[in-house]
């Protein structure tokens, strides 16, 4: 292709090298060397992406269709009817995603140096983090569904390892298992989708599937709907959408930088990325696309309401992440993929910032995560406070911060999307108000008022943690200034054009003002309840105990799953599979075979008397029998041969 471009495989290979070095030798290397390797891996990967981006924009004008740059470093599977290679594709979509993954990833690596400095598993932590970057870049660069699936499973593995990083804590180990198992449910759907794709198209390459679809423009619905629904199941598992979102709040058991990188900025957006990547399939399956929109809108509202009643600072952010991912799904569902990716990028900035700032707060409080014990941290943690303020105003959607542009774009796209779009837009609007409410609640509870515990001595975090906060705050402010028009025309070759067209000229402005007013309303409510009349929330909770308990207990979804799915599964595993299948059937067969062997052994054992002369007698008898057979054998063989001939009719 273009000689000035770097080889694409540098991008995943460098973090993998970091993983190997720190994973194998990390315990023997000095801490400074571990840090250097751990930071060099994402930094060099980021620089490789920048180099590729430079070469990419250098080769203007850009070709209009996939693939922009397709390299195939290694053949993988070559069978009749199935041909899959390790193909990497760099186009506008994967370039944006790579910049986010490696850029935000590098910042979070820097932050981790300060956050994890005293941890005994320092090298292990960074090797896992590098492993995650390796799989995530593989997922993003993958040029076919199967390679994407490899990256997909790989990030799941890295997520499992990092959630359970403090595995001595039983809750962390359980949360890791829960994340892994819930993701398996979604991945099962993804895998079925892959098989259906292979059966339908005979290929797994994105570009070949796209060109085959382009060759038959009338082909919609049917098997395409089935494929898209299967892929949606995978995306809903990875991106924590209804009904598979339950793993993400528990995933907060991992170290906070991990929550920022994996469970906010990058991995959980893989589902959105996958839908955008396979948008040519979803465009032909209106039913599946509608399902995506409904799932997204429902998740956005549902998670936002739960976020209102949580007291753990990280859990509030976790439900906020689920809610924002719902926004992205909503945008995908109205075929506004560029708006979804736009929100993905700004969300990566401000949500990583929120988590890192929350991590800074937790660090300052000596590990305390309960907001009811915080308060008044504004003076003690000035950098954390100001960066957190930027993030809170960004997520609430105030002008001119990043999420203002992206949320506005996707709500507008929903509004102009047919009749159902108005409803989706309204849900999004209500969610925007709730978002502002729970974020300002967090802000007030953490930074205002008086410190509500005596045994904490807050102190500002080290520079390695403050610097990423400041960079991410700047990105959260400026990240949206590119504007949706320029962004979607940039992404158009990858995901198609933004379909938003309206006959009413000032519609977008009106919708924008409405959204900001709703966010302002959320702020005012939070201001009233959590700054001016701090006793009101408790009174309200006492006045409506049933509703409050419903929210505080997260709609009892975990309890419902436990009673209706997990317990019956355990029952089936223990009694049907464990006792009947394993113990009775499989164990019975094994016991029977062993019994036969034992019995025949006991009989044959009598032969082995140890008496030399009895052996000799048997030997002689055998020789005599052989001799007899040689002499008289034909008398026994001949009649049977005659019988055979008789049967054959000769």
């Amino acid at each position, binding site marked *: 292709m273009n000689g000035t471009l770097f080889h694409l495989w540098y991008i995943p290979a460098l973090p993998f090298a970091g993983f190997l070095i720190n994973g194998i030798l990390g315990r023997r290397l000095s801490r400074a060397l571990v840090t250097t390797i751990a930071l060099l891996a994402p930094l060099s990967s980021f620089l490789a992406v920048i180099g590729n981006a430079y070469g990419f924009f250098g080769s203007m004008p850009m070709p209009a269709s996939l693939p922009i740059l397709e390299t195939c470093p290694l053949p993988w599977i070559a069978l009749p009817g199935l041909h899959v290679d390790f193909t990497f594709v760099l186009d506008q979509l994967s370039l944006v995603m790579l910049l986010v993954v490696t850029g935000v990833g590098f910042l979070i690596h820097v932050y981790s140096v300060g956050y994890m400095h005293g941890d005994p598993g320092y090298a292990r932590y960074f090797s896992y983090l590098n492993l995650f970057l390796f799989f995530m870049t593989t997922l993003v660069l993958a040029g076919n569904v199967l390679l994407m699936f490899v990256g997909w499973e790989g990030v799941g593995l890295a997520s499992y390892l990092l959630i359970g990083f403090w595995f001595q804590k039983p809750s962390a180990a359980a949360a890791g298992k829960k994340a892994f198992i819930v993701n398996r449910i979604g991945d099962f759907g993804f895998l079925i989708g892959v098989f259906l794709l292979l059966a339908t198209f005979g290929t797994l390459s994105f570009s070949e599937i796209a060109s085959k679809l382009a060759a038959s423009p009338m082909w919609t619905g049917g098997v395409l709907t089935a494929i898209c629904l299967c892929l949606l199941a995978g995306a809903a598992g990875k991106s924590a959408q209804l009904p598979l979102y339950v793993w993400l709040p528990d995933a907060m058991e991992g170290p906070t930088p991990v929550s920022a990188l994996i469970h906010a900025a990058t991995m959980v957006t893989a589902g959105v990325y996958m839908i955008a990547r396979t948008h040519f399939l979803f465009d032909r399956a209106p039913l599946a696309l509608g399902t995506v929109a409904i799932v997204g809108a429902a998740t956005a509202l549902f998670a936002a309401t739960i976020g209102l009643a949580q007291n753990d600072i990280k859990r509030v952010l976790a439900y906020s992440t689920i809610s924002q991912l719902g926004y992205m799904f909503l945008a995908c569902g109205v075929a506004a993929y560029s708006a979804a990716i736009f929100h993905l990028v700004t969300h990566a900035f401000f949500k990583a910032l929120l988590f890192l700032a929350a991590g800074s707060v937790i660090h300052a409080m000596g590990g305390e995560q309960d907001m009811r014990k915080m308060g008044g941290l504004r003076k003690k943690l000035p950098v954390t406070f100001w960066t957190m303020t930027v993030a809170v105003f960004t997520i609430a959607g105030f002008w001119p911060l990043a999420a203002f542009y992206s949320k506005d774009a996707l709500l507008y796209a929903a509004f102009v999307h047919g009749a159902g779009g108005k409803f989706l837009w309204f849900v999004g609007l209500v969610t925007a108000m709730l978002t502002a409410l729970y974020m300002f609640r967090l802000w007030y509870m953490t930074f205002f008022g008086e410190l509500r515990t005596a045994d904490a001595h807050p102190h500002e975090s080290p520079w390695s943690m403050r610097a990423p906060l400041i960079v991410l705050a700047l990105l959260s402010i400026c990240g949206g200034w590119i504007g949706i028009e320029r962004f979607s025309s940039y992404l158009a070759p990858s995901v198609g054009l933004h379909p938003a067209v309206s006959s009413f000229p000032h519609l977008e402005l009106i919708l924008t003002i409405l959204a900001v007013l709703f966010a302002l309303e959320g702020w005012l409510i939070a201001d009233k309840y959590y700054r001016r009349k701090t006793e009101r929330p408790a009174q309200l909770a006492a006045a409506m105990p049933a509703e409050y308990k419903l929210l505080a207990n997260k709609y009892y979804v975990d309890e419902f799953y436990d009673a209706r799915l997990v317990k019956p599964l355990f029952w089936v595993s223990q009694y049907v599979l464990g006792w009947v299948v394993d113990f009775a059937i499989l164990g019975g067969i094994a016991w029977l075979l062993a019994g036969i062997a034992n019995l025949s052994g006991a009989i044959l054992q009598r032969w*082995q008397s*140890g*008496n*030399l002369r009895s052996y000799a*007698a048997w030997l*002689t008898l055998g020789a005599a029998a052989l001799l007899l057979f040689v002499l008289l054998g034909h008398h026994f063989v001949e009649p049977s041969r005659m019988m055979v001939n008789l049967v054959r009719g000769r």
Partner: protein
Amino acid sequence: MSFMQHDVPLTWYLLLSAVLFSLGVVGFLIKRNLITVFMSIELMLNAVNLSFVAFAYQWHAVKGQIFVFFVMMVAAAEAAVGLAIIIAVFRTRATLSVDRIDLMKL
């Protein structure tokens, strides 16, 4: 050499060989002394040797005689090893009765 050619037919040699072999088998089976058993084995081997030589002479084929040399060589090696084992057994167990040497029992 004419007496062999004319007076003693092949059958007699084979009969003698069979008788010697059977004596060896019977001795092998009924004798209790390990050395006697060993000698019975030698008797069987030599009975076979006799039939080999007789056939070789009858068919003017030298292969049978070569085979006999091989058998004698193997028998010599076997005698050396076997007698060493017998001495070792006698030293440790102070008996040569095969009925009492039954350590191979399970």
